[in-house]
């Protein structure tokens, strides 16, 4: 976790360089403003001296003040102040714009990666972490641009100051040349001491966010199992770790801050001491000593801006490392050039597909958990094939492979004789639609969730809803199609979400429709109606349906039975019933159960009658 501190400075400068490259104009403007501010600040003393010399002293001597003299005093001072104010506005405003532009720019880049990287990458990264990469880490990276322009202005100020000293007296310049580097070294030491501590705190901040994220996602479970105390304890542990880390950061800052602040003051005193000696030996005037001492005291405060930048550096570097881990992530899906033929229903083939999930072992290593093993399928155009298999037999993984949400480890999926990997980006979703087991709703209107931004008139939206048996409930919603469904469709029930998801697929009139247990949350009668409508509406569609229920299976021309990721058998429903024991047991489970119960009930009745008779 500890980033080697020696490299932090270098890495930090690289981050700054990247930022400047991203926003050169606004950044230059901010630095320009800062330089104006810096020059004007060190000119303030000179300006006061100038008006006192030219107007105040003569007026006092003459015991009379002319309005010209007053205008002169007010004019010179106001000019300096106004110029300085313009500088400050330029520095702060342009600096802020540069900072927020960079933030927006990198948030766009990071989220583009989220959209570009394959699903398997998403599975490896906690969602809480990804959110914090796009938000807190981007912010931490570019926050340094708040004090940076000021610090660069300060460097100009220091150079300006040293030149003034050299001009006045070489000995005083020696004092300045000792103190300023000392200041710089103290700041570097400060930054080195801070770096590992800040890194640690930043990591803990991400941990706190992750725990909170997971815990709030699980809110219903926590509530229904009464585990609030347990969760609070889990959160307390990370929160207290963060607190201690932050206090440690504060202690370090507490050690360095006062020392860094004291250095310019000590410099002022040194100037006065050396100056006194020089005045005594007649090589310097008292006014010159005062001028340089004043310069030191004016520079003392802005110089701390250098410290702020150095203090921000470790945070920026840590933030950048976390952001760049996303930006540099590879393994994105490569797309081909080919388009899938338009027109009739798709011909779907799978050739010796295999896919295994990576699983983390106890010792932190990786293991493979095969989910699909050597699966070969051929779904004729326009036909309906049912995928049947026990829980965890690889059905959902197979549907993901068919949509190229993941690529197989070996084997290939062909759609109309074209390998999915050769299809251009977006080519598959143009012809195929998947209704997943767990539906995802966008924080959008019902209409937006169905059309997903494509051009469909309301009439076709309603038609799709009719097929999905969702028109009834949508009509009753307060704003009909314009009703906002809330985050992840929170305002809808599971069955309602499933029907909107179905409508989303239907409206696209796909040539291949894949339904992954897509009606699990609706009533049997509604399901029947959906399947009936779907059959009418999908004459030009090849359908692959993951199903448990007989009614669904019966719609299929062919059934494929899976177990442990392998195709155990395929054929018509009747054929499988006859020859495949696993299949028979699975699909007749309810009927057998009902029959057994009836038999037991009959037995009990018989026993009761016997009892009565025997009495």
């Amino acid at each position, binding site marked *: 976790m500890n980033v080697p501190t020696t490299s932090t400075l270098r890495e930090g400068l690289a981050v700054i360089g990247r930022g400047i490259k991203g926003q050169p104009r606004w950044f230059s403007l901010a630095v320009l403003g800062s330089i104006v501010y810096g020059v004007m600040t060190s000119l303030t003393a000179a300006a006061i001296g100038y008006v*006192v010399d030219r*107007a105040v002293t003569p007026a*006092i001597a003459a015991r*009379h*003040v002319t309005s010209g*003299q007053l205008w002169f*005093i007010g004019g010179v001072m106001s000019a300096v*102040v106004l110029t300085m104010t313009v500088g400050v506005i330029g520095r702060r405003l342009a600096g*802020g714009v540069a900072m*927020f532009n960079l*933030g*927006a720019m990198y948030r*766009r880049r990071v989220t583009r990666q989220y*959209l570009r990287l394959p*699903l398997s990458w*998403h599975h490896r990264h*906690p*969602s809480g972490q990804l*959110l914090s990469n796009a*938000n807190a880490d981007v912010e931490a990276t570019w926050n340094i641009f708040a004090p940076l322009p000021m610090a660069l202005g300060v460097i100009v100020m220091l150079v300006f100051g040293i030149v003034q000293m050299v001009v006045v007296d070489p000995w005083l310049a020696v004092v300045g040349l000792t103190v300023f580097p000392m200041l710089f070294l103290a700041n570097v030491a400060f930054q080195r001491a801070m770096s590992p501590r800040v890194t640690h705190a930043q990591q803990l901040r991400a941990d706190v*966010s992750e725990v909170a*994220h*997971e815990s709030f996602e699980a809110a*219903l*479970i926590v509530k229904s*199992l009464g*585990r*609030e105390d*347990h969760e609070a304890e889990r959160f*307390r542990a990370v929160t207290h770790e963060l607190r201690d880390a932050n206090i440690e950061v*504060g202690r370090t800052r*507490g050690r360095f801050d*006062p020392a860094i602040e004291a250095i310019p003051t000590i410099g002022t005193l040194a100037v006065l001491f050396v100056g*006194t*000696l020089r005045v*005594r030996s007649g090589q310097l005037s*008292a006014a010159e000593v*005062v001028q340089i001492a004043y310069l030191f005291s004016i520079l003392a405060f802005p110089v701390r801006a250098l410290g702020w930048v150095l203090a921000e550096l470790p945070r920026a570097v840590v933030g950048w490392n976390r952001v760049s881990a996303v930006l540099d992530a590879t393994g994105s899906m490569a797309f081909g050039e080919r388009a899938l033929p338009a027109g009739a229903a798709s011909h779907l083939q799978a050739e010796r597909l295999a896919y295994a999930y990576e699983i983390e072992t106890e010792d932190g290593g990786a*293991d493979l958990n095969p989910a699909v093993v050597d699966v070969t399928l051929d779904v004729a155009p326009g036909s309906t094939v049912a995928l049947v298999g026990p*829980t*965890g037999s690889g*059905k959902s993984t197979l549907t993901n492979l068919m*949509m190229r949400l993941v690529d197989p480890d070996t084997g290939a999926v062909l759609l109309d004789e074209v390998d999915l990997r050769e299809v251009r980006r*977006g080519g598959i979703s143009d012809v195929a639609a998947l209704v*997943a*087991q*767990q*539906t*995802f709703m966008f924080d959008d209107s019902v209409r937006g969730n169905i059309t997903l931004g494509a051009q469909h008139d309301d009439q076709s939206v309603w038609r799709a809803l009719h097929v999905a048996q969702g028109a009834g409930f949508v009509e009753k919603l307060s704003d009909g199609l314009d009703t906002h469904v809330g985050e992840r469709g929170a305002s809808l029930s599971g*069955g309602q979400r499933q029907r909107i998801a179905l409508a*989303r697929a239907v409206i696209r009139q796909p040539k291949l429709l894949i339904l992954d247990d897509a009606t*699990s949350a609706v009533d049997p*009668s509604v399901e029947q109606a959906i399947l009936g409508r779907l059959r009418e509406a999908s004459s030009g569609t090849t359908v692959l349906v993951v199903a*448990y*229920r*007989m009614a669904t299976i019966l719609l299929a021309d062919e059934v494929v039975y899976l177990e442990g990721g392998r195709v155990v058998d395929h054929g018509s429903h009747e054929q499988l019933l006859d020859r495949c024991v696993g299949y028979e047991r699975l*699909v007749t*489970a*309810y*009927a057998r159960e009902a029959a057994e119960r009836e038999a037991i009930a009959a037995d009990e009745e018989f026993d009761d009658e016997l009892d009565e008779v025997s009495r």
Partner: protein
Amino acid sequence: MSMHAAALVEHHGVATGKDMTTWQTLRRGVELSPELRKGIWVTVALAVLSTLGRVLVPFVVQRITDDGILAASGPDTGVVAVYIGVALVGVVVTALSAYFVNVRLFRSSESGLATLRLKAFRHIHDLAMLTQNTERRGSLVSRVTSDVDTISMFVQFGGLMLMINLAQITLATVLMFVYSPLLGLVVWLCFVPLFVIIRKFQGIVGRAYTRVRERVGDMLGAISEAVVGAQAIRAYGVEDRTAERIDAAVEAHRKAAIGAQARSVIAFTSGQLVSGLTTAVVLVVGTVLAARGSLTLGELLAFLFLVNLFTMPVQQATEILNEMQNAVAGWRRVIGIIDTPADVSDPGESGVTLPRGPITVQFTGVGFAYPAGPPVLHDIDLTIAPRSRIAIVGETGSGKSTLAKLLTRLMDPSSGRVLLDGVDLRTVRFSSLRSRVVLVPQEGFLFDGTLLDNIRFGRPQASEDDVRLTLTELGLDAWAATLPLGLATDVGQRGESLSAGERQLVALARAYLADPDLLVLDEATSAVDPSTEVRLQRALDSLTRGRTSIAIAHRLSTAQAADEVIVVDAGRVVERGHHTELVRRGGVYSRLHESWVAQQQAV
């Protein structure tokens, strides 16, 4: 809880705290984090000491110049050395006290904020389910993370600096009036417009920062879709559209942030501008006075130094007040959530603890309507006998899930009462209620951890053997053995390494291990294959002998196995009785059953 709480809540949602004034927010904030106040006066004393040290040095510098270098008899090294010695003492005292101030402030502020985080976190879990659902999850997370972080900057330095600045302003004012009442008055007159501007900008800057915090929430929501909806986005090829939506949210945030920055820059520079102009005005007026002989040049220059002593803290205070508005915006959001009443709350100590054992459930005249919605349950009267196995069936939207949520007190009825062993649910302690009644929802969330830890989430003290026994009893041991590392298998983010059906198996095992007296299954096996479901059902049957179980299902296999079926239609209980009896009766249930049978028919 704060008295404003009720007024703060909009509809049924979370309070935004928007109506709280800055002062109310600060007071309530300190109240919630008592550590902020602890030992504050020692810190203030140390801070005053370090400020005195800081003010001392320029004084000494002036004296060195006047008495030392410019001494009538030529530069006096002795005097200079003495003064430098005094100044060095000042420097050391300043540094030491500044160190202690820093350390003390960090300790108290971080402890206080940790307490605030914990309070907010706990309260979010205590909020009623309906209230939780009115907020985005990301927005809830920000209440315990970034919103608190915006406060930390202010409480670490700002609050204290503000006090010190006020002290320094007062001191400088007194000194100015002692030196020259007229010039003192001039300085104050110059600053009047600034005070007006600061006051006005407080509100403007505050609102701007509140907008920024809101835009952050929207932005997180939009970004989370790209993360959580990764599968749907790819399946439908809507990457571009999602990107556009994210860009819009990012852009709105950027604009809001720059807007807030611009407003705070105006507020800050007006301070700097007024300070500078004041120096000019003092020079002009001072020259007039000096020309009349009522002031010497030395006195005028010394007064300029006092003006500086006055304007510096004013400028700093302006800056801190801006920053404070940012902190207050974050603080309001955190306080808002903490002060949102937990509608469905734990009666706590005064509540009833029910003894363990068979449980009776009663609904008397229960009605329910979602906030601002039509009633979904009417006048439910029900008694469920102990040790019985009940199935609740009905069409989608009939209100059967609502019944389950009332039963487990995730919600309270709008009218009527739900009784457990004759005791109103609202008076039962949560510790007792949650150990006796457990709900298994359709989508049982799994934590990123091992299968073992997920199953014992409901009863952490359970041993590995207990967990194995549970799996065996439920007939799930063979399934668990197929996982690559058995119980040690990591289930991944939200359990995504498992299929939806497998997640339901884990959720069921988890609830079963928790060993409640009443188990409520709300479509808990909807994604499980029929033969596993039947097996589970049988296992539960034989094992629920001692307990009451209520299953809500649209697969009627569950209903067939139940002792009694309760049929809900349009928010009313329309039928109840045994499966065979209800089928014969030819009512709602028999129609449901017909369509169910039709689905199974072909066998």
